[in-house]
């Protein structure tokens, strides 16, 4: 920034030079002076000055000013409470005023100990009270959703939560009702606060007014340990902090990676952790006996059994990976199977194409984009929720967001190329996003980006939103383990199913039919136990050490927050590898050091750091031509597009608090189709296919191509590729 654009401000006698337009709070911070705030939060947009905690004395203005609403101007002379008696008195009065009706709840309140109101009162506020009258009372606590409890007595009306709801997540569900001292925070018409990002208001609340029901009375700040790790439930890889107490995860909080999540988390990542304690968690290995029965085994016996199965399988082993394994785990499995046994065949969770790396960008660059083009059939929020917030931010900042039609034959690529090509080329910062299946692991979108010459333009790029959290990393790890030819073994002696996602994959299920025997690694007693011969317990992302690669291609550290109830995969894979003369460490740092040489250019485990860096853009590679789209089956009625909703999957299914977030039984219809069928929005329609009939609520989505209907996967079970819809 050039010198012309800076201003000089004097704060408490300290001269500080800051860029023009900097808020006074940040300016003071630059001078090493703290101006206490409650409501001020730059991520929520423009400051509102609601709490008056930041009162400062500005020379030339007779009244005290709310510091957060001011921006630094040249020659401004500011005195904060540290030097100005007036400002200190003002702050004291503000705090006294806030505390007048604040209930004596500290010992009970979950926020106690990490509460900004406590902190600021202790540091700046009055030590004694002058008020003896009874306090205002409300009914409390009010569950505004199964995950959030609202205590109106504690609320200091800073409007952070409502601002988040209206200005960030744009769900507009939290509002302030009534006026003055009677103001309360409420949801719209007492409906539950049902939005994918609702949990963020808990973290935003500077008092204990909005608290998590999961964390309610579970732990105190001095009893917990926060483990910095990465969320493993979607490909975004938000940086989270797992709060643990006595060896159990108690809550998940944001760790604010400014390039990935900016401190926002979706409710799945925030509340989904209780699946660790699910009742049907597999903790012991078990073996199938007879047709239906299974017996638990000791670990030694299980390893013996597994060894026998592997020896019998030899090279004719197929491994089905989930995409939720760590890179190390995939690598270890690869070393064991590929080097130890020569079994190179794997079923990958999804395609990964390196061509996309040439258009790599941090997610935060979406916010700065001028033009965003979204392709693919799936809603973004269902695939990579935080990306949706970035797009909303971009839209608020004036970017143009173009969503392609859903259900277009090629995902809208051709249309985008033809109709928007020129504009994308000309746009200063244009970003392409592919959200949906059939993107060929990013090759499709990379191909389009290459065509539009985005590789050379900083600030422009392309994202492919994959389905699994670590699909890329798993592919890297598996590939690094050995370089052998992948030949389809015939017959399949042994199928290894790694993880619950793989077990739920119908293709894997079909493979299992062909395989002689099946070895499954599963966290939960899912149906896989019925068709696997040996089930070994799996672990969750919160229980592992290792690395994940997110959708940007960023390598991030996963830290073990809690000890799993069983040995983690790496531990027993290493043991098993020993029996096949494969030298493998059970500790992820060593494994990473080994694999890093092979696929990440030898970077060090410690170099990944708490806030992971995004690698440089890779050199452009030849984008392979998209494989010919399989010929569409023709059928009667509307073609069905189903997508996997955010609130689904093995983890979410085991979290009772999140069930209300699961998608409603809806069918999305294009306006034309709806008109043709005569379905109004919200009316019930019968959806028939393959002899299955489902009653769903109709919803009209103008983005849908005519002749296409979209249903969330969990409501589309049993339905074929085409459905007939009737009222």
């Amino acid at each position, binding site marked *: 920034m050039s010198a012309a654009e800076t201003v000089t401000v004097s704060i408490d006698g300290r001269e500080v030079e800051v860029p023009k337009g900097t808020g006074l709070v940040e300016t003071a911070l630059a001078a090493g002076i703290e101006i206490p705030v409650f409501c001020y939060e730059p991520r929520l947009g423009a400051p509102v000055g609601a709490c008056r905690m930041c009162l400062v004395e500005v020379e030339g203005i007779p009244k005290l000013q709310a510091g957060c609403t001011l921006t630094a101007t040249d020659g401004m002379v500011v005195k904060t409470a540290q030097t100005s008696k007036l400002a200190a008195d003002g702050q004291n009065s503000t705090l006294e005023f806030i505390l007048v009706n604040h209930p004596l709840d*500290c*010992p*009970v309140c979950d926020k*106690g*100990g990490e509460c900004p109101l406590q902190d600021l009162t202790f540091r700046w506020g009055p030590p004694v009270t002058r008020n003896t009258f009874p306090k205002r009372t409300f009914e409390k*606590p009010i569950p505004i959703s199964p995950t959030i409890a609202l205590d109106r007595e504690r609320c200091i009306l800073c409007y952070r939560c409502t601002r988040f709801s209206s200005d960030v997540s744009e769900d507009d569900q939290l509002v302030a009702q009534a006026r003055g001292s009677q103001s309360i925070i409420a949801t719209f018409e007492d409906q539950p606060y049902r939005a994918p990002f609702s949990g963020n208001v808990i973290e935003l609340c500077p008092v204990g007014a909005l608290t998590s029901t999961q964390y*309610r*009375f*579970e732990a*105190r700040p*001095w*009893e917990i340990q926060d483990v910095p790790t990465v969320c493993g439930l979607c490909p975004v890889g938000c940086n989270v902090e797992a709060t643990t107490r006595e060896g159990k995860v108690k809550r998940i909080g944001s760790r604010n990676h400014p390039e990935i999540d900016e401190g926002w988390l979706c409710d799945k990542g925030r509340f989904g952790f209780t699946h660790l304690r699910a009742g049907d968690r597999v903790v012991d290995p078990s073996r199938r006996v007879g047709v239906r029965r299974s017996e638990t085994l000791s670990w030694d016996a299980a390893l013996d059994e597994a060894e026998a199965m592997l020896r019998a399988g030899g090279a004719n082993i197929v491994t089905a990976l989930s995409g939720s394994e760590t890179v190390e785990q995939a690598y270890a499995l690869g070393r064991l199977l590929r080097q130890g046994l020569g079994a190179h065949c794997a079923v990958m969770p999804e395609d990964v194409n390196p061509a996309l790396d040439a258009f790599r960008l941090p997610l935060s660059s979406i916010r700065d984009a001028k033009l965003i083009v979204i392709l693919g059939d799936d809603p973004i929020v269902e695939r990579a929720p935080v990306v949706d917030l970035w797009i909303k931010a971009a839209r608020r900042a004036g970017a143009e967001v173009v969503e392609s039609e859903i259900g277009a034959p090629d995902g809208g690529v051709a249309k985008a190329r033809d109709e928007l090509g020129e504009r994308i080329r000309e746009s200063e910062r244009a970003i392409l996003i592919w959200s949906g299946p059939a993107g060929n692991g990013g090759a499709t979108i990379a191909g389009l980006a290459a065509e539009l010459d985005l590789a050379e333009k900083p600030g422009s790029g392309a994202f492919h939103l994959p389905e699994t959290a670590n699909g890329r990393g798993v592919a890297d790890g598996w590939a690094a383990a050995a370089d052998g030819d992948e030949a389809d073994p015939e017959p399949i002696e042994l199928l290894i199913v790694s993880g619950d996602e793989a077990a739920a994959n119908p293709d894997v299920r079909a493979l299992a039919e062909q395989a002689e025997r099946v070895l499954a690694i599963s966290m939960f007693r899912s149906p896989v136990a019925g068709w696997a011969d040996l089930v070994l317990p799996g672990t969750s992302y919160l229980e592992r050490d290792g690395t994940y690669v997110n959708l940007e291609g960023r390598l991030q550290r996963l830290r073990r927050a809690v000890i799993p109830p069983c040995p983690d995969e790496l531990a027993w894979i290493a043991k098993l590898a020993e029996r096949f003369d494969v030298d493998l460490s059970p500790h992820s740092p060593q494994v990473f050091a080994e694999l890093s040489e092979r696929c990440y250019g030898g970077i060090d485990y410690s170099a990944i750091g708490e806030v992971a860096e995004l690698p440089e853009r890779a050199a452009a590679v030849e984008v392979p031509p998209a494989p010919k789209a399989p010929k569409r089956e023709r059928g009667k009625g509307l073609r069905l597009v189903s997508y996997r909703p955010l609130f689904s999957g093995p983890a979410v299914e085991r979290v009772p608090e999140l069930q209300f977030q699961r998608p409603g039984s809806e069918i999305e219809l294009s306006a034309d189709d709806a008109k043709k069928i005569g379905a109004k929005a919200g009316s019930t329609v019968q959806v028939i296919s393959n002899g299955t009939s489902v009653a769903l609520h109709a919803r009209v989505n103008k983005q849908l191509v005519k002749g296409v209907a979209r249903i969330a996967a969990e409501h589309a079970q049993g339905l074929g590729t085409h459905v007939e819809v009737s009222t």
Partner: protein
Amino acid sequence: MSPQPLDSVRGFGVTLKQIFKKPITQQYPEYKRPLYPRFRGRHRLWRHQNGLEKCVGCSLCAAACPADCIRVVAAENTADNRVSPGERYARIYEINLSRCIFCGYCELACPFDAITLEQEFEISEYSRDDLIYTKDMLLAEPIKRVPVADRSLYDTPIPAYKERS
């Protein structure tokens, strides 16, 4: 100082005269000296008069404990299981008395006067595990009781924290 043989003998007088005095040792298990009111012995948890527990499970005692010997796990009161007034109660309350240093910071920290250090000091056990006192043990009347000296003689008019509200 020159040696003075007679001075050496004076000590014999001192030892001899003790025979005719009453021994100062106390026959402990039979006789228990009254403790002063401020004595800090084993902890006690208290109930309100209506039977509800005073403890709300806020863990302030655990935070104040320099020896980290208190473990509190809280839970929410429900209509059919009301343990304490208010929203929260201590589901688990354990004090590891083998770690406790009897500094009394827990009773200073407790905002509800739910925990106090009482006069009982006979807390030996054969096993360390037995020294982890659970909530039920802490709420119960102590089995062994020790006399306490007259409070009106030996304590400040309003004892700073032994007040029962």
